[in-house]
């Protein structure tokens, strides 16, 4: 097997793909969004439950149809988000996106992005970057919706 491929399908990715964390759609939720990747038809429905004046992420639940990368990404993301404040999560998201879009130039800070580090192999495969980022885009949209709904 050529090495870039194993850098993509790491053990952690395979593990998250097979046994995704926090999967399924749960109640209650502050907002719900549905995102599609029109090039491949992948879909995610994501629910975000905020508490403490809409600053703390109490739950992220989702239903994701997609490739191993996109499913693993949703699982890793949910695990990173749950229990933190939206403010705490901001630098995580920024750093993760920057690393994913860096085409491999940014190594990624494990302190910040945790298991997300296992997804960075995809940064060298431009077509896969979208797969990985879809769940994060959905989170972002759900957050905007939750916060404007509350305003």
């Amino acid at each position: 097997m050529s090495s870039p491929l194993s850098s993509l399908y790491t053990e952690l990715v395979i593990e998250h793909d097979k046994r995704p964390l926090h999967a399924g759609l749960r109640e209650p939720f502050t907002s719900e969004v549905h995102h599609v990747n029109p090039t491949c038809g992948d879909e995610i429905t994501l629910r975000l439950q905020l508490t403490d004046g809409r600053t703390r992420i109490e739950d992220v639940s989702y239903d994701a149809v997609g490739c191993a990368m996109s499913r693993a990404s949703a699982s890793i993301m949910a695990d990173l988000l749950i229990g933190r404040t939206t403010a705490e999560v901001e630098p995580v998201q920024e750093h993760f996106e920057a690393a994913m879009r860096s085409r491999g130039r940014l190594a990624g800070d494990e302190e910040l992005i945790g298991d997300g580090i296992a997804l960075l192999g995809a940064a060298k495969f431009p077509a896969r970057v979208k797969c990985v980022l879809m769940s994060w885009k959905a989170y972002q949209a759900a957050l905007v919706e939750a916060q404007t709904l509350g305003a």
Partner: protein
Amino acid sequence: MSAPSREFDVEAIRADFPILTRMLDPDTPMIYLDGGATSQRPRQVIDAEVSYLYSDNAAVKRGAHRMAGLATDAYEGARERIAEFIGAPSPDEVVFTKNATEALNLVAHSLGSGDASTPPRLRVREGDEILVTEMEHHANLVPWQELARRTGATLRWIPVADDFTLDLTDLDSLVTERTKVIAFTHQSNVLGTLNPVGRLVEAARGVGALTVLDAAQSAPHMPFDVAELGVDLVALSGHKMLGPTGIGVLWGRYELLEQMPPFLTGGSMIELVDMERSTFAEPPARFEAGTPPISQAVGLAAACDYLDALGMEQIAAHEKALTQQALAGLAGIDGVRIIGPALSAERSGAVSFDVAGRHPHDVGQVLDSLGIEVRVGHHCAWPLHRRFGVHGTTRASFSVHTTAAEVDAFVDGVAHTIDFFGSLS
């Protein structure tokens, strides 16, 4: 038309495609099995375009100087060549567009132009029906949805049966006196299925409906003759038939084109212009607003020369043999389900399949690591994928330059992919 060569010498053909010697990384030669998305171009096509640009380039039609004359000859000569290639009775029936998608949009917009002087047969209005099929590429579906939305017409469709062919059981009730257009693909870009053109043309004629054929996937791969097919309008893409991007073709019967209102408007498609209104030129000029894809037309004509020199019968036979090989190979792999007819006799060389439990992106990724370039996703035929309960498929498509060894590598690659993911579990 050049006489086709007697034998099909794939190695000689490959020498015409410089890109085929490309390495994807130092150890991985490229195996390009995505001609269904866009074909590679032989040197002859690129050379024709470059030599036009280095010696005869000028604006066509509008100029009186000698360079304009040379450019116009090159452009109109290309039109004649393409007319000949598709069996069009006259080059005036060949309209150059930017791709097959524009050709189909042109028809849909022209039929919905709302110009009151257009004969009723060529006007889609509220209450009218447009019939498509469930296996259409988005290019031959969304423009009709939009036409229906704009006009208040109703879109109906012929379903696809479990055997991957059109289900014509209810054809008689789907085609009614209200049907104005039947638009369908000649050959599915996913299933490979070849549709029964004659049967649909007959049904359309029975009610005076127009037939619009999406031939983007068929014309490059088999003998193709618009006159024999009996349809009214045909759309083609240059880049799928060894020609350049940026050019497509709408063919239409002259007596229809002559009555159809224009779509894109601007220079070179007018008769008279004053500030308040304009009248329009005869076809094909009426449908070619602005500066057309000139060097691209020259390249496309060279592609027709190239295809004819190989022989369309021979090309079809070559690709059929490869398809058979691929189908047989994939049939032997557990967990692979072919989405399309199992017999090569009923289909073209676009072979789509599902790998149980594996998303096509992941399948494509492993194949790519082996240098095998196949397409993954819904291939712009989303409703068709839904019909078969899959989110996407992996598709290999075969071309004039594909070898039996490449097909073997592909089949082995699919087996390897399944092993690869199995080993990770």
